[in-house]
Each structure stands twice: as structure tokens, then as C-alpha cells.
């Protein structure tokens, strides 16, 4: 055990920090730091910088364009980029589909899709959830029926993040309706401009529209777009959902928002207020405990009470801590949480009621943060999974 990172690791951290400082467009950083809405061009601008540097896919093996970092390096990279105000990696191709293609894709599929993902030329949406199948994903009903060298896909996907930014969809479909739920599912790659697909935006309660519905009506998908074997899709989906480990606790994002709390308090001359000082200190301690746990998982010969459930526990604690920080930000807003305007969320024009007051976004950010305990497997489901591991046998 050693308290500090090694000098090499510290040097790496400095390198990432300097890169973010030099390469991130200040206008994008300002939007991220103020919790405002980002456009696709903002994400692409940053991802392109990362790609040029060879840093866009830290989770991929080197032969597919990964940088070959240690887990600690990946961890430091996540933290430094988020802390520096860089946009998150929302492109599901990078964090979700890429690893699945690398593990289970054919050489042709890898060749065709991986480079385009790295270059941000191709954006993938995740088509898992359906209106009747959220937590109980395996109950889904979208079907794919074989017809010569195509599948005919019919169904309705929902909550599809950023589908309006995307040209492609990776999708779970039922290929065997007779089999047990988990055993009749396949993993298909679908071009979003195939005839029969309609993407409809969903308006969210905080005014955003990151989510969509995707309707599939007799969509013809070539069989070579199947990942792995037919009816084995559930295995690939589980691999995908379990793959993202280091980022799951969102430590960099929490640190960034805590900095924001302090900055806002200082701007209002409230940094000395006992109530807020206490709350910040409490959350910083919570964050330290989470960070220590995230790093301990990366260490060797560790003992865990629920082996295999580490990711679930990090997800639960990490998201709930981040929600507490967003709730504190809404507290910090005081009466400035009353007015709201979409213009103020977009840094366009100036709302005379809000002006350039950053506090205008805090209520909306708090509302948005409720998603953290719903997506990526709800926190109830994560707790169920962990409890099952603890109590089985």
C-alpha cells in the first residue's frame, strides 16, 4: 500500500491536465461548467481532439486503437478530463458497442465499424429498453424474423439516448419467442436510415430532449449485422453493461460539481456560511470514501464482501452522491431557482430575468440528476443484484 500516486502517474495526470487546458474550447468548457445544454458539434469537437491525440478509446485494446493505459491511468484520465470541464463521453459506440464488437464481432464488422467510431463519424444509439420492458429487460417484445439473408424487425424502443445525434442503433431483438426470455434474444446492428424506422423525440421535465422513441416497422436488416450467434444476445448485452467499470462511480464529475458549489458560494459571498461549509465538508468526505473504494478495487488481493457486485455498489454510491451534490447546488441557488427559461440553458441571448446568472441552470440540473439512479440499471435493480449475490447458496 502507498498513499501517493507514483511520480510517473503524477506526470501522466499533469500531461492530461495540460492537454485539456490547451485543447478544450473555452466556450464548451463554460457550458459544461455551468450545466448548460451541449450540441452534437460540441461533443464532436472535443472527441476529435481526443482522437487526434490517440485518447478517444482508453478502454479499447491497443491493436484497436486504445492507448494501452493501466487502470490507474484510465482512472486519472477520467478524473482530469471531467475536472477540467470536458464533455462526457456520451457516444455509446465508444463505451458500449466498441468493447462488444472487439470481443464478439467478426473481422469484417470490426473493420467496418471501429475506425468510424473512433473518428466520431459514426454515432451509435442503444436500443434496449421498451415501453413494457425497463428493469425487466428480458421481457422485451421487439422481434426479428429471418427472411432469406435479412431479418425483418418490428417493435418499439424507448428512452433511446441521443438517437437524434446517431446514424446507427445497436438493438436487442427477440429471435425466438418460444425460448425462455433470456435465451431468445439476439444483438443486431441497424442503420437508422433504413426504411421503416422513425425516431421521435421525448420532451423531458427539465426541458431537455436527449431521449427518443424508435419505432421499427418491417425494417430489413442484413444478417451479417448480427453480433455473434443468434439467441446469444443476452450474453453480449450483459458483457456490455458490465464493461464500464472505472467510470461508473463518476468521481471526476462529482469533484467537478463540488468545485462548482464552492465557486457559486464564493461568488455570492456565502463561502463562510456554517450550514453550507458543513454540507460541503460532509460531501467531500463521502467523495473521498468513494474514491478510495474505487481505487482499492484496482489494487491487488483485495477482499470484497460481495465479489462480482463491486460495480453495482460503485454505481449506487456514486450516483447517489452525485445527486446529493446536485441537490446542494439547488440549495445554493436560493430564490434564483424560481425563474426558468430555455434560452438561459443554451447560453443564447440573455434572459432579462436571469441575465448571465449561472444559478439559472441549477434547478434544471437537479431535476436532470434524478436520471442517475434510473439509467444504467436502476439503483433498486443494482441493490437486488447485490443482495442476491450476498444471500445465495
Amino acid at each position, binding site marked *: 500500500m502507498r498513499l501517493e500516486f507514483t511520480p510517473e502517474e503524477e506526470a501522466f495526470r499533469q500531461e492530461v491536465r495540460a492537454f485539456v487546458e490547451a485543447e478544450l474550447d473555452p466556450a464548451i468548457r463554460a457550458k459544461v461548467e455551468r450545466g448548460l445544454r451541449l450540441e452534437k458539434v460540441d461533443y464532436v469537437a472535443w472527441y476529435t481532439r481526443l482522437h487526434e491525440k490517440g485518447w478517444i478509446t482508453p478502454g479499447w485494446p491497443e491493436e484497436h486503437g486504445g492507448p494501452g493505459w493501466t487502470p490507474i491511468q484510465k482512472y486519472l484520465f477520467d478524473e482530469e478530463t471531467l475536472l477540467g470541464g470536458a464533455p462526457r463521453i456520451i457516444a455509446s459506440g465508444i463505451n458500449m458497442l466498441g468493447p462488444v464488437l472487439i470481443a464478439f464481432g467478426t473481422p469484417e464488422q470490426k473493420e467496418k465499424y471501429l475506425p468510424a467510431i473512433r473518428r466520431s463519424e459514426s454515432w451509435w444509439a442503444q436500443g434496449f*429498453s421498451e415501453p*413494457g*420492458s*425497463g*428493469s*425487466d429487460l428480458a*421481457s422485451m417484445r421487439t422481434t426479428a424474423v429471418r427472411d432469406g439473408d435479412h431479418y425483418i424487425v418490428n417493435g418499439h424502443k*424507448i*428512452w433511446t439516448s441521443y438517437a437524434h445525434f446517431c446514424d446507427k442503433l445497436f438493438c436487442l431483438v427477440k429471435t425466438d419467442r418460444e425460448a425462455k426470455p433470456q435465451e431468445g434474444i439476439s444483438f443486431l446492428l441497424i442503420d437508422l436510415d433504413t426504411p421503416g424506422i422513425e425516431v421521435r423525440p*421525448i*420532451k*423531458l*421535465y*427539465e426541458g431537455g430532449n436527449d*431521449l427518443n422513441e424508435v419505432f421499427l416497422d418491417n425494417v430489413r436488416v442484413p444478417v451479417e449485422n448480427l453480433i455473434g450467434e443468434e439467441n446469444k444476445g443476452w450474453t453480449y448485452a450483459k458483457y456490455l453493461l458490465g464493461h464500464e467499470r472505472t467510470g461508473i462511480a463518476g468521481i471526476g464529475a462529482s469533484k467537478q460539481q463540488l468545485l462548482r458549489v464552492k465557486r457559486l458560494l464564493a461568488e455570492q459571498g456565502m463561502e463562510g456560511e456554517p*450550514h453550507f461549509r458543513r454540507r460541503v465538508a460532509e460531501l467531500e468526505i463521502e467523495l473521498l470514501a468513494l474514491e478510495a473504494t474505487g481505487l482499492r478495487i484496482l489494487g491487488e488481493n483485495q477482499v470484497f464482501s460481495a465479489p462480482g457486485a463491486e460495480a453495482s455498489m460503485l454505481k449506487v454510491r456514486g450516483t447517489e452522491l452525485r445527486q446529493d451534490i446536485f*441537490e446542494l447546488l*439547488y*440549495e445554493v441557488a*436560493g*430564490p434564483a*431557482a*424560481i*425563474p*426558468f*427559461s430555455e434560452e438561459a440553458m443554451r447560453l443564447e441571448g440573455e*434572459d*432579462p*430575468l*436571469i441575465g448571465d446568472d449561472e444559478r439559472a441552470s441549477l*434547478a*434544471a440540473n*437537479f*431535476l436532470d440528476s*434524478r*436520471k442517475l*439512479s*434510473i*439509467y444504467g440499471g*436502476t*439503483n*433498486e435493480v443494482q*441493490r*437486488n443484484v447485490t443482495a442476491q449475490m450476498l444471500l445465495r447458496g
Partner: protein
Amino acid sequence: MDFSISEEQLQLRDAVKRFCDGEYPQERRGQPVSIDRRRERWGMMAELGLTGLILSEACGGSDLGMVEQMGVLEELGRCLSPEPYLSTAVISASLIQSMGNAEQRERWLAPIAAGELRMALALDEPRGRYAYATMACRLTPEGDGYRLDGEKCLVLDGPYADAYVVAARHEGSLQLLVVPADAAGLTRTAGTTLDAREIATLGFAGVLVSPSQHLAEGERAEQALQAVLNRASAALCAESVGAMTELVEQTREFLKVRKQFGAPLGKFQALQHRLVDMVIALEQSRSMAALAAMAVDEAGDRKCLKLVSAARVSVARAARLIAKEAVQMHGAMGMTDECQVGHYVKRLMVTERLFGDVSYHLESFENTTATAA
């Protein structure tokens, strides 16, 4: 202490409930409504005797108290009513009734009871949070009256109000005035709240105020302002209870109908226990809102402030818990604009911040208990 509700109070609640169920159908709640429709509704509320509920009979009112008004406000909160009831029929009505002279009461109150006038309170200012003791809006003597300069913000129901009750200072002395919306030198900028209601920023540039527009000054004005803030807080608690009732109800219903893993969500004990916690929070809020309403009707200044502040803190905490749980238990659906849950959550979030937030009311509670010892 007696929390019993009288037969007359029950009848009033029923009448308001019928009005609300007819006027605010479930699927339209939280959606924008035309201003003409809103005027029509305001007239209907007057006919039911709601706008003049606490006004004297001489002004066309019913001479009832906060306890009766609580029932009305609870129903309006339950239906997310965007009408300026709090601003006009609670705040402005009570201020003019208690502070105004005969002429002022005649001029402003009869039209309120008749549903012909909408008013709003211009209190908050851009600098400071709820810094009512250090307002920057100022009066300078001019002729036999004053000129008024400064800026007010977060004026709930401000864009369509016909007149404002404005708080300003002259050499440190608080003054409460009535200013018509068409006064020369008054500019208003309309905006929306998080829960899609209307607020305004008001600019006063040398607005002339005649003695007939003066409601109160000095110590008398300070007391009147505190009293009306207490009343507004009790009203906000009642509104919140209405909104929370509906959120709990919708969540309970959702747990019964939404199925996952082959069973209604309500079968999962992890959710059952949390639904119970929501109900406990709701019931305590109902009690605290009643306590606050009784305090406004019966208690002396200090006790009233103490109980009302306690109610604001307690109701805000309960509302936060209920709001977060309602969203979580609805899953992704709970975060959509289409689902009612979000509209209720936003109403509660705005209500929590009107006329003092949790920090403000905790502090005022601490102050009343510290000085009482």
C-alpha cells in the same frame, strides 16, 4: 388543540373540489392556458366566493379565516392551478384589508371580491436573498407624496396584475404602497417560472405615489409585512400539501398498474416501505399546514412566526422526499414532460423558494425560540 373540520368548512372544500375537477382536467395540468380562459376562470372563482373569502362582508367578502382558505389552497395545489389566488386573494387582500383606510378598501377590495382585479406583491429584489430588511427600492419626497425608484423581481403573477403592493423604504422606514400597473414610469418584463407560471421584473423610474396610495409605514408596515409573509407561508404549505397528495396518489396508482418481472411494482417490498415513508411525510405535512393556518388566525406575532416557519421547513423536507421518490418509482417515465409527476415536482420546487427557503425559515425559527427563552 382541535384539528376538527366543521361542516361548513367541509362544504366549502367540496365546492372547491368540484370546481377544480371541472376546470383543471388531469391531462391539462401544467400545460399553458390562454389568458382569456384564465380571466373567465377567475370570474368563476369570484362567483364561488373564493376571491373574497377573507374579506369583510362590506367589501363583498365572506369574512372567513386562514383555516377556511387552507382548504381552498389545498385544492388549487392539487390541481396545479396557475391562477393568481395567493397573490391576490391571500396576500394583497389581507394587506389592504388590515392596513388600508376606508377609501382604499373600497377602491381595491370590492373589485377583488368581484373577480375584476388581480394584484401581486412586489417584494423581492435582485440583490440578496430574501433580504427584506435591506431593500434598495427607495422613496423620495415629491409634492405631497413620493417618487419611487428601484427594481423588484420574482413578482409572482406579475405580468398580468392590474396593480401591485410594493414594499420600499424612505430613510430606513418601510413603506407599503399600492401602485397600479399602468403608472407612468413603471416597466414590467414578463418571464416564466420553473413550473411554467408567470413572474415579472418591475422597474420603477420616478413613479409618482400619492398619499392615497400609502397603506402603512414604519413599525406598522414592518408588522404588516411580517404578518402577510406568515399568511403567505401558511398558504404555500397548504398548496404544497395538495400537490403532495396528488404525487403520492399517482405513485400509489402507478405501483399498482405498472408490471415488471411479472408482478405489479407494488409487490416489491423495497418500494412498499418507501411508499409508506412518503405517506408519513404527507400526513405530517397536512398536520403542519393546519397548525400554520390556525396560527395565522389565532396566534400572536411571535408564536405565529415560529409555527409558520416550522411548517415551511417541515413541509419543504417532506415535499423533497416525496418528489424524489415519485420520480424514481416512475422510472424514466417520471422524467418526461408528458407525465404529470414532473409538473408537480416543479410546482413543489418553486413553492419551496417563495418568500423564504429552508435556510431562511430555519433561521427565523431559531430566532423566535432563542429570544423566547
